[in-house]
């Protein structure tokens, strides 16, 4: 289990170095995205106004305070459950060159193949640790699609963002798959002994 520090946007080479279970801290720029944002891109066919190539996407709907036109201050920014958004994994990698998706609770196994094919990773964050996460966001630099508030496209500048674990790597490895498989086996034993 290695430890890494990465700056986003990142390259395919950076991503291929990561293995499921590794610990990662992130600097640079990350993009906040959620259910409605991705429904607009993929189901309603609207091109995202922010560049997603090499991007780190965070599953979030932040609590913010509006300071002026297009300008927001972060109040409490946390991370939502990722599994609901798994079907967007393939097109995010294929069409836009997204490199990382970050959320809580993991992505189901159907994300493994697109991540292997397109050189992407899933990062697991500590769910609910929003007070801490907020301190790692230096600034909200841009907001697009404000009509979807709070499910807009957000561009955050972050420092020491994490800790994050590589939940799914770009080589077919998934920590969530392994933990669930072991737990199912354990469950059978426990039930047999009840």
């Amino acid at each position: 289990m290695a430890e890494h520090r990465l700056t986003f946007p990142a390259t395919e080479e950076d991503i291929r170095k990561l293995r499921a279970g590794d610990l990662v801290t992130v600097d640079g720029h990350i993009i906040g995205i959620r259910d409605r944002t991705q429904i607009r891109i993929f189901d309603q066919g609207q091109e995202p106004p922010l560049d997603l190539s090499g991007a780190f996407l965070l599953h979030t709907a932040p609590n913010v305070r509006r300071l002026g036109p297009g300008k927001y201050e972060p109040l409490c920014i946390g991370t939502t459950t990722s599994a609901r958004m798994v079907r967007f994994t393939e097109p995010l990698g294929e069409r836009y060159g997204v490199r990382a998706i970050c959320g809580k609770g993991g992505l189901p196994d159907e994300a493994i193949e697109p991540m292997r094919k397109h050189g992407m990773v899933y990062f697991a964050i500590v769910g609910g640790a929003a007070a801490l996460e907020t301190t790692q966001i230096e600034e909200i630099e841009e907001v697009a699609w404000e009509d979807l508030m709070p499910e807009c496209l957000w561009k955050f500048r972050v420092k020491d963002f994490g800790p994050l674990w590589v939940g799914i790597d770009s080589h077919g490895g998934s920590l969530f798959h392994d933990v669930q498989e072991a737990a199912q086996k354990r469950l059978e034993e426990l039930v047999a002994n009840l």
Partner: protein
Amino acid sequence: MTVATDLQQVVEDTAAHLYVWALKDIPQDLRDAIAAAVERETSVPGRRVLETIVRNVEVAEERQNLVCQDTGIAVYACRVGEHFPLHPARIYDALKTGTERATVEHPLRSNAVHTITRENTGPNTGHRLPIVHWEFIPDWDGLDVKCVPKGSGSENMSFLKMCVPADGVKGIKQFVLESIVGAGGKPCPPGIVGVGIGGSADYAVYLAKDAITRPVGTRNSDPVVAELEAELYDLLNQTGIGPMGLGGDVTVLAVHIEHADTHMTLNPVAVNYQCWAARRASAHISAAGDVDLDREF
């Protein structure tokens, strides 16, 4: 009349205070349980997750920020004395207005929507929101109010099974185990597993929610039920799901069971999951309107 109106204001102010307090400052019993979990956890990522949770709780306190971004659905548990001078209909009004005020004044994220149209219905209120659990106490003139903001990530991990009597208590244990393993990392483990057994289908689910409002690790007063709590706690922590589902020794902080007697052909079991951010704040209100804030129930 004047007394009742003032008392209604007191209950409203208390509700507004409890909602925000619960979101920012988690109770000591929960902090102790998380601290004990850090000591017990042997997996490297599991331990790091728990340390991050501890750090997050400290940061929330230092910065007066919310512990978690999900302000949840407002759930209150009320114990109303027979002689408390404000009718529960008015208590409900006060809890609703208090919830709205807290949401607007702080401000807090509002999560309440119409179930079909998904349109926002109000500042964390709506038709039948907030949710209140009532208990009525004879020979008493006070009111206890407990606010439990319930996050959706853990609420989505709620399950009901109508076991049959032939499944016995083994069926109950198996269902709880399968539910928690199936939930994996989604409800932000390690948390409190609330289990409701007996009664009817609806009542078992209601009791499971009651169970998660108890302070961490308190035992059911019925020794048979308490024994099942201890056994399930051991079993669940052998599943290896671990903190945030990344694998480890600590999958749950506690198992709380509430039960009701049931029909001879029924054996219902319900599970309600409460995440590590098991937020809870309570107050005692006297008939004269004195408020005593208290986290220990």
